């Protein structure tokens, strides 16, 4: 219990600051000092009051003492006088009596006055009694005077009365004095001793008075002392002796003796002397034998003189007591003053010590604490608690300053160390972070490698993307992962979403095949090839982030899939928490996206390679086909050459006949015309055979073509397929032609158009696969002319429709080359036209060709036939075919030309040179191209060799091709195809030789 209380006290005490404790101690000391001072001051005040009261009381008692003494002296004197027998004695006492009377009067009056004071009211009855007694004494005085005035004054009765009254008065005064002084008897030990001493003195005076009285009586009566008187004297003497010794003892005890020693010594000496004078006479019985050596008044005088010494002693001792009391009062007052001063000094000391402690200890300590606080905070501080003092605080401050200086150095070192440590720490942290990063990097690298390997093993995009998004969801902890591919400039198509995020993808409408618009913000930046990280999707106002946010996703990384700075898609990875991706993960995703892009690119390349391989295979097949065709073509061209050569005379003669034989019958002429047309068709057919293996020229010589006519021709040409061959198989193909009348011409090559149209019709026939309807329809609108070929066949699906124009694409298997529609497409494009295909499986196909309409101003080149040679020309004809050579010569000669012929190249050159040598220069040379030995090219070269401008017209079965391929040999001015038509030959001659003629004329 006590221990606990003490513990609590200690706890509370430890919570107090020194200042508080100091305040508490100071306050406690102050209170203690104040309490002690008040207590002492109160005690001193009481003592002071008591001392003052005592002093007053002593004053009163002195007055009473004086009064009693005065009365005693008067009593004794009067008694002596009353007992004196001779007048001389009485006369000598008169003066003394009157003096003693006035003295006792004064003393009694003074006593009365003193007793009349208000605080002495308890003594009123005594005072009244005293007054009564005193008036009695005064009354007796008159009797005494009267008695003394008588001749024989001795009056024993009066003397007794007087003695009784005055003694009573004295007793009264004594009682008063005793009663008055008694309460003060115990107040102070010294004062008590004083009082006892005074009592002894009073006793001495009393005995002295009695002695004086008895001895005075004895002397007056001049008789020996009665035995009882002697006994009284002896007893009194003993008492007196004792009283003196007691008084001495008391005076010494009370310390009074020092003050009264001299007077005491005087008084005692005086008494002893008096005693020595009278002892033998009055104290020794039987000494006196009649006749005393001194008179009574002499005795009284001596006795009163001794009493006077005693009175002086009394006064001195009264004064000493007075001084003692005054000293006591002064002492008390001094003590009060000193105590007050001490208390004040103690309080001041308290305050001063508090102030000193505050100013010199607590203040500096607080400043030191402040400075220390600043120091601990690292601020600069100086300990100035001492201000150059050399006390403990000063030493503490200087030590602290030194310590602080040391601490500064230590701190500097510590800071340095700290810096080093921090640097190390940072390095360690960096190393740890690097390690962690490396670890994460490794993990991601592993993941990357895993993904890379997984996607490396795959070739198709779909499974690559599947692996990627799956791995991202599983191993990177993505809440959503998808791959989007760029569809066009504004859209992305979702290519693949992860399995785990399928529901989320469905909720967001981002399943595979869904579309996402490229926003202005994130995706567009991603599409520019940058990795986009959106740590907080909800904060982005664009559609795509909001879409993801709507799916509960908070952070997204969009990594571009790009190959060779071409972004073809994006990898989207998202998580359902904000700030979910670290920079490492972003980097990982960027790398992954690169890998994916590369893989995707590789896959695409692979696909392209496959495609290329396929194409190559097809091409190879086509090339093989073409080789076959080429062989066929070469064979055919040989055949065509021969046929052309065969046809040439037929054509030439037919034409010549028709032109030159007006006598022909109409029927013959008609037949010849059919022959001529057949020859033309045959020539064209042969010419067309070349198309299979030769490339088209790109520069066409366009002429107005009537598509209606072409359509009719095609129907005729294809009749065999759609009618004859169908009929053979039991099919019926209805061929309709819905031709718009007055159809505008188109600019083009009729044969190409015809061929294109023929191809379309063949395709239509193939598409029917049996019976059906084929419609040829021509229409025109604005500036366009259109021709449609419609069938009711199987139609094409979308894929086929898309690919049908590609070369080598065929649905016909071995039956088709896959070149038909491709050739059509090429022809149409060369004519500045367009092709559109409407088809659906089972719905048939309509292929429309539209061309710009030709301007009307164009006129058909029909004037050739009317052309006639302007002049007679010298011509050299070179050909290895004698039939052709002859027919051509004849035809040209028929036109009036001078024609030389040569049957070979060498012969031609020789003829030409010979003619040149003769100065008969040919106006033109017409030579066959293909000849054994020297061919047409060398002939032309030879003609032109010597700087001759003689035109050379080359006849060739390949004429069309040569023109197209710019294969016209040097020196050849004009190329004509076999079989040559007279019109054409004429036109060529007219063209070549007009210039020659002009130059000749000029």
């Amino acid at each position, binding site marked *: 219990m006590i221990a606990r209380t003490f513990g609590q006290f200690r706890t509370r005490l430890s919570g107090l600051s020194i200042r508080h404790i100091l305040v508490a101690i100071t306050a406690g000391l102050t209170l203690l000092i104040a309490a002690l001072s008040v207590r002492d001051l109160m005690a001193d005040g009481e003592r002071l009051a008591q001392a003052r009261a005592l002093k007053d009381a002593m004053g009163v008692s002195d007055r009473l003492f004086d009064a009693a003494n005065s009365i005693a002296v008067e009593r004794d004197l009067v008694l002596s006088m009353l007992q004196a027998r001779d007048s001389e004695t009485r006369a000598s006492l008169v003066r003394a009596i009157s003096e003693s009377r006035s003295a006792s009067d004064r003393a009694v009056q003074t006593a009365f006055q003193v007793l009349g004071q208000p605080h002495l009211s308890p003594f009123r009855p005594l005072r009244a009694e005293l007054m009564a007694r005193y008036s009695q004494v005064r009354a007796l005085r008159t009797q005494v005077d009267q008695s003394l005035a008588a001749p024989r004054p001795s009056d024993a009765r009066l003397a007794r009365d007087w003695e009784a009254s005055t003694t009573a008065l004295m007793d009264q005064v004594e009682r008063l004095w005793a009663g008055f002084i008694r309460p003060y008897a115990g107040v102070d030990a010294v004062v008590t001793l004083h009082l006892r001493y005074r009592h002894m003195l009073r006793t001495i005076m009393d005995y002295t008075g009695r002695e004086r009285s008895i001895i005075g009586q004895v002397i007056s009566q001049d008789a020996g002392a009665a035995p009882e008187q002697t006994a009284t004297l002896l007893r009194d003497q003993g008492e007196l002796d004792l009283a003196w010794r007691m008084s001495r003892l008391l005076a010494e005890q009370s310390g009074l003796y020092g003050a009264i020693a001299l007077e005491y010594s005087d008084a005692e000496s*005086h008494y*002893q002397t008096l005693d020595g*004078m009278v002892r033998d006479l009055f104290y020794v019985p039987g000494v006196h034998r009649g006749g005393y050596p001194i008179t009574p008044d002499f005795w009284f005088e001596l006795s009163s*003189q001794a009493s006077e010494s005693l009175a002086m002693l009394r006064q001195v001792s009264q004064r000493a007591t007075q001084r003692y009391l005054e000293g006591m009062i002064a002492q008390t007052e001094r003590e009060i003053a000193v105590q007050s001063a001490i208390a004040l000094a103690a309080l001041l000391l308290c305050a001063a010590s508090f102030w000193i402690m505050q100013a010199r200890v607590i203040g500096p300590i607080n400043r030191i604490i402040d400075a220390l606080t600043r120091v601990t905070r690292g601020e600069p501080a100086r300990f100035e608690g001492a201000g150059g003092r050399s006390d403990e605080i000063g030493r503490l401050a200087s030590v602290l300053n030194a310590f602080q200086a040391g601490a500064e150095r230590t701190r500097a070192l510590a800071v340095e160390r700290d810096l080093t440590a921090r640097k190390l720490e940072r390095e360690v942290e960096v190393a740890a972070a690097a390690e962690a990063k490396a670890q994460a990097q490794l993990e991601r690298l592993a993941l990357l490698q895993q993904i890379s390997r997984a996607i490396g093993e795959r070739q198709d995009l779909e499974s690559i993307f599947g692996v990627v998004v799956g791995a991202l969801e599983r191993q990177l902890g993505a809440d959503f992962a998808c791959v989007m591919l760029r569809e066009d400039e504004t859209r992305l198509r979702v290519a693949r979403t992860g399995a785990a995020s399928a529901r989320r993808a469905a909720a967001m409408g981002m399943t595979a095949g869904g579309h996402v618009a490229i926003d202005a913000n994130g995706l567009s930046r991603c599409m520019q090839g940058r990795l986009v990280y959106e740590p907080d999707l909800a904060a982005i106002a664009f559609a795509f982030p909001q879409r993801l946010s709507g799916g509960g996703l908070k952070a997204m990384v969009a990594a571009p899939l790009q190959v060779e700075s071409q972004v073809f898609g994006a990898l989207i990875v998202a998580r359902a928490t904000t700030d979910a991706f670290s920079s490492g993960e972003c980097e990982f995703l960027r790398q992954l996206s690169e890998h994916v892009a590369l893989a995707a690119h590789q896959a695409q390349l692979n696909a392209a390679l496959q495609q290329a391989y396929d194409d190559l295979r097809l091409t190879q097949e086509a090339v093989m086909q073409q080789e076959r065709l080429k062989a066929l073509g070469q064979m055919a061209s040989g055949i065509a050459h021969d046929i052309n050569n065969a046809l040439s005379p037929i054509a030439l003669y037919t034409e010549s006949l028709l032109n030159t034989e007006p006598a022909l019958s109409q029927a013959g002429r008609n037949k010849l015309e059919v022959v001529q047309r057949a020859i033309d068709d045959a020539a064209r057919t042969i010419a067309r055979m070349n198309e299979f293996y030769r490339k088209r020229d790109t520069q066409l010589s366009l002429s107005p073509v009537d598509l209606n006519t072409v359509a009719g021709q095609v129907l005729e040409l294809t009749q065999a397929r759609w009618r004859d061959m169908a009929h053979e198989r039991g099919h019926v193909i209805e061929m309709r032609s819905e031709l718009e009348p007055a159809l505008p011409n188109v600019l083009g090559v009729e044969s190409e158009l015809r061929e294109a149209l023929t191809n379309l019709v063949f395709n239509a026939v193939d598409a029917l696969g049996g019976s059906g309807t084929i419609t040829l329809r021509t229409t025109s609108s604005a500036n366009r002319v259109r021709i449609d070929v419609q069938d009711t066949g199987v139609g094409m699906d979308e894929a086929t429709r898309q690919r049908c124009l590609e070369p080598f694409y065929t649905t016909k298997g071995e039956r088709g080359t896959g070149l038909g529609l491709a050739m059509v497409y090429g022809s149409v494009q060369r004519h500045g036209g367009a092709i559109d295909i409407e088809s659906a499986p089972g719905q048939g196909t309509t292929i429309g060709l539209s061309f710009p309409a030709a301007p009307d101003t164009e006129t058909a080149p029909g004037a050739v036939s009317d052309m006639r040679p302007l002049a007679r020309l010298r011509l050299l004809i070179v050909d290895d075919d004698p039939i052709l050579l002859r027919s051509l010569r004849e035809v040209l000669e028929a036109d009036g030309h001078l024609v030389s012929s040569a049957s070979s190249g060498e012969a031609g050159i020789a003829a030409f040179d010979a003619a040149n040598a003769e100065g008969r220069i040919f106006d033109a040379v017409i030579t066959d191209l293909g000849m054994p030995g020297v061919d047409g090219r060398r002939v032309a070269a030879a003609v032109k060799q010597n700087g001759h401008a003689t035109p050379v017209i080359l006849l060739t079965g390949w004429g069309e091709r040569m023109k197209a391929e710019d294969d016209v040999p040097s020196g050849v001015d004009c190329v004509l195809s076999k079989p040559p038509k007279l019109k054409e030959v004429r036109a060529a001659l007219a063209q070549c030789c007009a210039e020659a003629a002009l130059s000749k004329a000029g």
Partner: protein
Amino acid sequence: MAGLGRSACALAALLLAVLLLAPAARAQENLRLVEQDIKAGLLYNFLRYTEWPHPPAPGDAVVVCVWGDDPFEGRLAPMAGRTVNQRRIEIRAVHAENQLNGCALLFINAGERANWPTLRQHLQGRSILTVSDYDGFAQAGGMLEFARVSNRIAVRINVAAAQSADLQVEDRLLRLASVVGARAP
């Protein structure tokens, strides 16, 4: 105690004397001795009520000199050692003038009355209270004289002589004495 002792001794001596010796002769003798006692005691009163112009310094003794043989038969001896006016009393017997220095009171033995004029001359200018017990001393220029009047001791005083010696005699002393010669105003 000493006083008591002395008193007891004296008392014993007296009782012995009363019992053993003839009463009458003894009485006369005793009376004479009592007279000497009284005279010796009176010297004390003279010292007490006389003022010297140059009182001895406190601590110095008041010297009572007796010129000639001691008439008090040793009764002055008790006075030595007592104090008067707060000064110790010293008793000295002198037989030559050069021994008078320091004397406050000079008692001249009655047997030396012949030498008194010489002595008086010698005392001229000195503040020494002169006392003697032969008749006519005061008249002869002495200051205080024990006399016998009606068979009782009386004191005569020559105030002028005292005043001439620059001594003041107080009233208390004058009450005991009858004045001889011109009295000072």
